[in-house]
C-alpha cells in the first residue's frame, strides 16, 4: 500500500488490524486507539481519499490502497489548514482524539467545503472527545472551511 505517498510492503498476520500495522509496523503512532468497538474515532485515517476507522479494517484488506494518516497532513511550518485551525481555536486539550478529529474533518470538508455548524457536528458524531466539549473543535472546522 501507499502510506502518505510512500510505498510500503510487508507480510502480515491475516488478523492484524490496519491501525496496528500503521502504528507498530510502520511506526506512524499519530493514529490512536481509544476503544475496541469503532465508536471513538481516534484511529480515523483516509483510505483512497475517504475517512475510515483503521481499527475496523484488517491490514490485508488495505492491500494496494492509498492511505493517509495525520503524519501526511502537514509539517511544522507548513501545517494543513485544519491543523492551523485546531491550534488557533484551541480545538484540542490532551490531543489524543485530535488526529482522528482532523482526519474526519478533512473528509467532511472534501465532501462539503462550506458546512454549517449542524453539519460539522453530525459529521464528527463518530469521533469522541472528552476534553473540549466539542465547542472549539466545531469552531476550528468552521474556521478551516473559511480558509
Amino acid at each position: 500500500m501507499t502510506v502518505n505517498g510512500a510505498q510500503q510492503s510487508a507480510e502480515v498476520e491475516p488478523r492484524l488490524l490496519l491501525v496496528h500495522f500503521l502504528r507498530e509496523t510502520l511506526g506512524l503512532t499519530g493514529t490512536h486507539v481509544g476503544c475496541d468497538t469503532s465508536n471513538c474515532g481516534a484511529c480515523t485515517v483516509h483510505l483512497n481519499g475517504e475517512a475510515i476507522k483503521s481499527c475496523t479494517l484488517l491490514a490485508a484488506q488495505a492491500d494496494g490502497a492509498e492511505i493517509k494518516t495525520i503524519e501526511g497532513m502537514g509539517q511544522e511550518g507548513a501545517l494543513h489548514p485544519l491543523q492551523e485551525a485546531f491550534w488557533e481555536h484551541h480545538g484540542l486539550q490532551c490531543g489524543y482524539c485530535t488526529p482522528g478529529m482532523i482526519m474526519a474533518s478533512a473528509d467532511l470538508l472534501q465532501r462539503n467545503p462550506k458546512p454549517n455548524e449542524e453539519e460539522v457536528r453530525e459529521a464528527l458524531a463518530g469521533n469522541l472527545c472528552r476534553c473540549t466539549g466539542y465547542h472549539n473543535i466545531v469552531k476550528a472546522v468552521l474556521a478551516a472551511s473559511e480558509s
Partner: protein
Amino acid sequence: MSAVAEPWVGQPLKRKEDPRLIMGRARYIDDINVTGQLWASFVRSPEAHAKITSIDTTEAKAFGGVHAVFTGNDLDLEAPLPMAWVPPGVEVKNPPHWALAKDEVHHVGDPVALVIGSDRYAVVDAAQQVYVEYEPLPVVVDLEQAYEGGDLVHADLGTNQCHEWSLGGGDLEAGFAAAEVVVERRIVNHRTAGAAIEPRGVLADYRAGSLTLTSSTQVPHFLRLFLALQLGISEDRVRAIAPEVGGGFGSKLQIYGEEIALAWASRKLERPVKWVESRSEGMLATHHGRDQIAYAKIGATRDGKITAYHTKILQDLGAYLMLLTPTIPSLGAFVMSGVYDIPAVQTDIIGVFTNKMPTDAIRGAGRPEATHQIELMIDQLADELGMDRLELRRKNFMAPESFPHETALGIVYDSGDYPKALDTLLELADLEAVKAQAAPGKLRGIGYSTYTEICGLAPSRVTGPSGFGLQTGLWESALVRVHITGAVTVYTGTSPHGQGLETTMAQIVAQRLGCDPQNVEVIHGDTGTGPQGLGTYGSRSTAVGGESVARATAKIVDKARQIVAHQLEAAVDDIELIDGKFAVKGSPDKGMTIGEISGAAYIPENLPDGMEPGLEEQAFYDPENFVFPFGAHGCVVEVDPDTGNVDVIKYAAVDDCGPAINPKIIDGQVHGGIVHAIGQALFERIHYNEDGQLVTGNFADYALPSAADVPSFDLDRTETPSPVNSLGVKGIGEAGTIAASPAITNAVLDALRPLGVTFINMPLGPQRVWEAIQEAKA
C-alpha cells in the same frame, strides 16, 4: 533574546504544546516501546463474587511466545494496594486488595492472572488458555440493599459498612425547629466512568536494581512512592514517568494493580514488560466515580430563609478501597451548603461495599455530587414555597462583603461574589426568550445552578495533622532554570494531561522575567528529572503548582535585580522590570534583559562578592487554605413528551476562577466540564445487572456525548481574586462538571412541571423521562 514588554498573563495565547499534538508527533504510553520488551495480558474474573478454587496455567505457559504466567500467590509484594487518605478519627474497614486476587474475587474484572509473552496479540490468546475454577458466592449490587444487610461482599468483615463519618456545624435541631417548610428528597448520583479517550497503559523496565515505570498516570510522584513501598526497594531506585497523557479526569489518579504487577514481573523476568488496556477492559477495571444516594432534608422559613440542611449519604465504594475511595464524599461534605449562608448543616456519610469496581475520584470528586444535591434541593424548596428560584438563591447567598466567610462547618471560603456571577449570567443569555420558542408539541424548561467548589488541593495545615484526614502534605515544588543563553526551563511537580499547563506556566514565568513564553520550556511528569510534587487533580495545578513556579521565579527575579544593581552600580531597590528589561527606575534604556543577566550570572567575576554563580531557583509551596472558585450556570432544554428525549438547546455559564492567566485555556476547560456533566445527566451510566455483570462495558453501550448531542456554549467570567496565593488564581478544570448536572436536571424538571412531574433522578434518558411523564398522567 529581544526585549519584550508583553503582559503575558491574561492573554489567550495559542498553546505551546499543540504542534506536536496536531502533527501526530506526541508520545503517549502506547507509542513507547523499548528493546527486549515483552507484552502482558491480564486474566480477569467473569464472576462478581467467588472463591478461586484452582487456576490451571499449564496450557497458557506452553502457548507459543509465552514467557511466564503469574497468579496472585506468585506475587510476593510487601503490602496490598494502597489506600492513602482516611477520613479523620474514623475506623475504616479496609479489606486487602491485591494486585492479583489471591483466593477470592469481589467484582467482575478483578484480575486473577498475568500472562507475559513476546507478542501483543499472542498474550491475549494465551490468556484464554488460563483455566480458573470459581465457586460462586452471593453477590450484592444494589447500594441500599448492601447497606441494609444484604449479602456480604467481604464475609470476614461481618458487614458491608466500611465507615461512617459526619461533618456538621450549627444547631441542626434548632434549625429544623425554626423551619416553617421542610423538603426531603432521595437524590441519586449514579455511577459513571472517567472515560479518558486514551486507555491506560504501563511499561515497566527493571534493570540493574533500578525500576523505570512509564504509566498513563496523573500522579507520577505518588506512583514512585508506592512502587518503592510495594516492591520493598528504595525510592531513589524508582523512576516514574507520565509521558503525554491522553486525558485523566481522575481515572488516572490512582495506584493501579497493573502498575504494581508489571513492575514486579519486570523485576522477576529481568525484562521490560508493557500492557495497554482495551476499552472493554478499562470499563471493567479503571475506577468508576460518583455512585451515591443522598437523603437530603432542607428547612426554611416561609419567606425563604434557609435554617438547616441535612444530608445522609450512602457512598457505593465498590468492592475495595483504592487510593482515595473513602475520602471522595468527604470532599463534597466540605461544600455541602454550596453558596448559601445556612446556619446549621450536617452531612452523615456511610461508605458501603458492593460487588462492583471501586469508585474513586472522577472530575470534581464529591463536589459535583454535593452541588447536585443542594442545587436540586433549592429548586425543590422554591417550588414548595411558591417562590422564584433565583429570588430564593439571592436571599440565601453568602454576602459578598462577608468574605473571607467561615461557614457553619468551619470551612473558610476565601473570596466570592455570588450575586454578581448570577447577574452576569442573566445579562449573558436571555434564557426566558429561548424557553418561549419551543417547537409545537415540545416542552422547554430553564435550569439554574449557582455553585462553589473547594479546590487547590490542599493545604497541609488543614489536611495533614489536624483535620480532614489526608495523611500527607499536598504541596508542590518547582525549579526554574535560566540557562546561559537566556532560555528558561521550568520543572514542575504537577503532571498535566491536557490542561495546557506548559503554556499557563510559561506565561507566569515570562511575565515575571520579561521574556517570551516561547523561550520558556516546561518539563513535567518525570520523577527522574523534575522536582517533587503530588500530581494533577482537584484543580490544583495552577493554584498550587503554578504558585510554586511563581515563587521560584520570584527568587530568580530577586537575584537578577542584585546582579543588575551590581552591574549598573545602582541600588537594588531601584531595579525593576521595565519594558522587558531589569533597569533603574527612570532610565529603562540602560537595563538588562533576563538573557543578558543570565549571561552574566554564570561568570562569577560579574557578580557581587559572595554571590553563587548561576541563575536557578527552587521553591516549595504549601497553601494556607483551599481556594473556592464559583459561578452561575443556566440552560434551556427541550423535552419531547412523546419520546422522553431531552435536547440541550442553550447553555450559558459564568465562572470565576480569579484572574485568568490564559482565557482561551480556561474557556476550553469550562466547555469540556459542561459536556462531561451533560453526559452524566443525560447519557452516561455505568450499569451492573443484579448478578454483578457490567452491562455498559464499552463505548457502544456506555454513551459518551458526541458533537451531535450538545450545543455550543455562551461563556463569561467574573474575576474575584483569591487572597490565598500571589497569583489570585483558583481553578477551573472541574467547574463545568460541578455546575452542569443540576442545571440540566433542574431544566428538565422545569420543562415537565406543567405535566405534574415534580422530581426525577439522573440519568435523564428518554425512557426514564417518558416513564415519569406517564406516571404523572396516571
